[in-house]
């Protein structure tokens, strides 16, 4: 599925965009499409899972592959879903707002 990711600060500047679309496979899509899928995340899914969810770790992986200019910054970034920080194991429901949060420097 296509996931939109909001970008800020250096991430926005490195890509030249404040929002990017990435292709991330959901579990059932992978099962149905088999070898057709080119998702970088396919090996992380088994035969079970929710077609309407993707893992945060898969979003990060997809960002690394589809936007290599972010590669250096990504390891220090956090992901926020609907304005809340989430860990790599969290699953992101379809339609949720996903944001890439580089190390913050307010104050």
């Amino acid at each position, binding site marked *: 599925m296509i996931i939109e990711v909001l970008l800020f*600060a250096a991430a926005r*500047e490195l890509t030249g965009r404040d929002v990017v679309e990435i292709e991330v496979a959901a579990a059932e899509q992978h099962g149905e499409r088999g070898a057709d899928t080119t998702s970088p995340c396919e090996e992380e899914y088994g035969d079970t899972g929710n077609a309407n969810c993707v893992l945060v770790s898969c979003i990060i992986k997809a960002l690394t592959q589809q936007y290599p200019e972010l590669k250096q910054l990504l390891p220090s970034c956090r992901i926020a879903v609907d*304005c809340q920080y989430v860990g790599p194991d969290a699953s992101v429901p379809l339609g949720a707002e996903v*944001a890439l949060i*580089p*190390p*913050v*420097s307010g*104050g």
Partner: protein
Amino acid sequence: MSKECQVNAMVTEKPHLELVDGPIQMEALRPRIDHPDAGAQGWFVGVTRRTTGDLITETLYYEAHQPMAKREMMKLAQEAVKKFSLLRLVIVHRLGEVPIAEASVVIGCSSSHRPQTFAALEWIMNALKKEVPIWKREVYSDGKEEWVHPDANMDVSGASE
């Protein structure tokens, strides 16, 4: 004063939080931390500093994930009120350009005794710098510009406060 009135006077108002685009109006904020049971009021004002090591800062710009920043600010504000028994709390962060010597962040709080106020200001400021999705961009006098991303494995440095 009836017992009921006394109890009402102790009820803490919701923390006052703002993200603003222009200069922070300190005078307007001042009465917001007044409370009849407060024995201490304290303010922290973070301002744009000109020097970071050998680098001279020309100006700073801030940007935020605004809805999330407000949410994170409310989260840490509520935690601080509880942790330090604050009677009033104000947090204002400025976005956009913040020239040298002008305030980028203002935190004000009141408490019954001074130790809570002193401790709260430092705790809130540290939490804000760790959790609230706001970023600063340094513009140096030599023309170089960079986003400040502490801990990032990038060519960025020079966090100011």
